[in-house]
């Protein structure tokens, strides 16, 4: 375990060095991160300033909480999950995954931690700012237990999202080009900025059970607002564990399918 912490530290260091390598890239990347984090709240303003409080069961402030979680989880996806895993597709195509598989360490860990976009920390700061503003407007502070629960649910959300990404990347072992799949999921993920009650019927089922966006943004927001039931917590944790186990199994199975690129 200690060894993997050391490896994570070294991989983070390499990402930091990489980010600092090109001065203009570094500055532009930083500015873009702040810009995207700020634009994530715009759709909500559009809906609520037209005078139609159109999300049943959610006031503007409460819906803003979901946006905060969406920004946070999206930041984790773009900063920590996607950079490393997206490189796997290239590794498979060029055959350089060989070098990862020849290392005496877990291949899934090595590829997952191979690259970070450190500027996406801006998303975390934006999300925390939103939480602060929301509670300020609500005129109260979150309960300690609710903070604890929402932190737990944040890890549940990250684990679920990471597992889904592993499942998508694993498809690259079979079909090599998965750009469309990646694009599709990124588009679907965008729906996570809305509370789940916005969606009806099939979409609601889809975003709760198949692509569990509810678990990633709505449930943590409910937890922080202090209105999440214990059954929701149990379902979230169980779902994350199921996704994690399934994705690990699929990843290992897919590795056996790896044929490497010829020299």
């Amino acid at each position, binding site marked *: 375990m200690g060894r993997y912490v050391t490896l994570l530290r070294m991989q983070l260091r390499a990402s930091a060095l990489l980010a600092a390598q090109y001065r203009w890239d570094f500055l532009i990347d930083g500015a873009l991160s702040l810009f995207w984090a700020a634009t994530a709240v715009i759709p909500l303003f559009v809906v609520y300033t037209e005078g139609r409080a159109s999300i049943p069961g959610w006031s503007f402030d409460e819906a803003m909480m979901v946006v905060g979680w969406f920004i946070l989880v999206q930041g984790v996806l773009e900063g920590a999950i996607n950079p490393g895993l997206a490189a796997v597709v290239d590794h498979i195509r060029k055959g*350089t995954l060989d070098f990862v598989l020849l290392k005496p360490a877990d291949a899934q860990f090595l590829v997952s931690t191979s690259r970070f976009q450190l500027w996406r920390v801006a998303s975390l700061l934006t999300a925390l700012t939103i939480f602060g503003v929301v509670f300020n407007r609500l005129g109260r502070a979150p309960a300690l237990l609710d903070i604890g629960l929402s932190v737990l649910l944040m890890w549940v959300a990250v684990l679920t999202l990471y597992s889904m990404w592993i499942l998508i990347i694993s498809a690259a072992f079979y079909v090599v080009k998965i750009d469309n799949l990646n694009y599709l999921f990124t588009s679907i993920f965008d729906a996570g900025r809305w509370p789940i009650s916005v969606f009806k019927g099939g979409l609601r089922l889809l975003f709760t059970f198949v692509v569990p966006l509810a678990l990633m943004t709505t449930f943590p927001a409910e937890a922080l607002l202090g209105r999440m039931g214990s059954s929701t917590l149990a379902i979230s944790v169980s779902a994350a564990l199921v996704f994690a186990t399934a994705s690990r199994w699929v990843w290992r199975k897919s590795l056996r399918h790896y044929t490497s690129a010829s020299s």
Partner: protein
Amino acid sequence: MISVKGLKKHYQVKQRPPGLAAALTALFSPQTKTVKAVDGIDFDIEPGARVGFLGPNGAGKTTTLKVLSGLLYQSDGSVTVDGHVPQRRDAAFLKKIMLVMGQKQQLLWDLPPSETFELNRAIYEVPRPAFDQRLAELTELLELGDLVNKPTRTLSLGERMKCELVAALVHGPRVLFMDEPTIGLDVSMQVVMRDFIRRYNEKYGATLILTSHYMDDVAALCPRVIVIDKGQLSYDGSLEALAKKVRPEKRVTFRWSSAVDPEVLSRFGRVVSSQAGEAVFQLPQASVKDAVGKVLATLPVADLTVENPPLEEVMSELFSRSRAAQKPVEAAS
């Protein structure tokens, strides 16, 4: 050290004829064929040996190397490397081996090679003192100097390849798999790499398996060669014996002290080439003495050399013979 018995690696490959209609048909009813990349080969390699894999492109050399290093699962047969089953890829096995591929790189492109070395040190759990000592030694042997601190992307191909070697050796592997390590390098860099590989092998007793299309690499490094062609082992022994077997002739070059009528040359044996002032004969070994005596007695010889035919030609002949002799090994399914 390495034992391979009945190794087979077959792939299912999708196949379709050219044209739009065929492409549409293939969408709904894809045709596959079995490609027998490796089709039943056996060999054993002693610890510390240097062995060259030879064969034309697509012969199965790299596939065999990848099965030995645990990257590919064989379809049949058994493989052990220093008592390990490579496909299990257990940490103890991976710490004993390395794979260098001339056409692929593991160095972090935008960072200096020293960063990759450090990362590998952590991954292979090499103690700091051992790492520092080994790195200093490798850096000196390969005359890397300060190059390891420049971003990889700014290095020349030869410099990058040297750094690739260091990255692959920081954990002190005992089995070296090298797939065309000198490809694209200039002649002097090829010599540096060969010298380095030989010295590493001699100093640490590491076992080496090398594939290369440069016959000079194989001649300089590998007393034993294994020829793989169309997935099958067609020769296992010394390079010299292989050359004699394929081309038992000697190549005799004469330089003339005055002009010689090219028409008369064929009387003495098979003429390979004839230019102003020089002629090259290819002669059966038994008749070299006799033929050379006759030429010396009748023509104005200034100088002569007797050599084995170039290894490239020997290999080219070997592979073209095997192409002519063997039927295709793909079977449609």
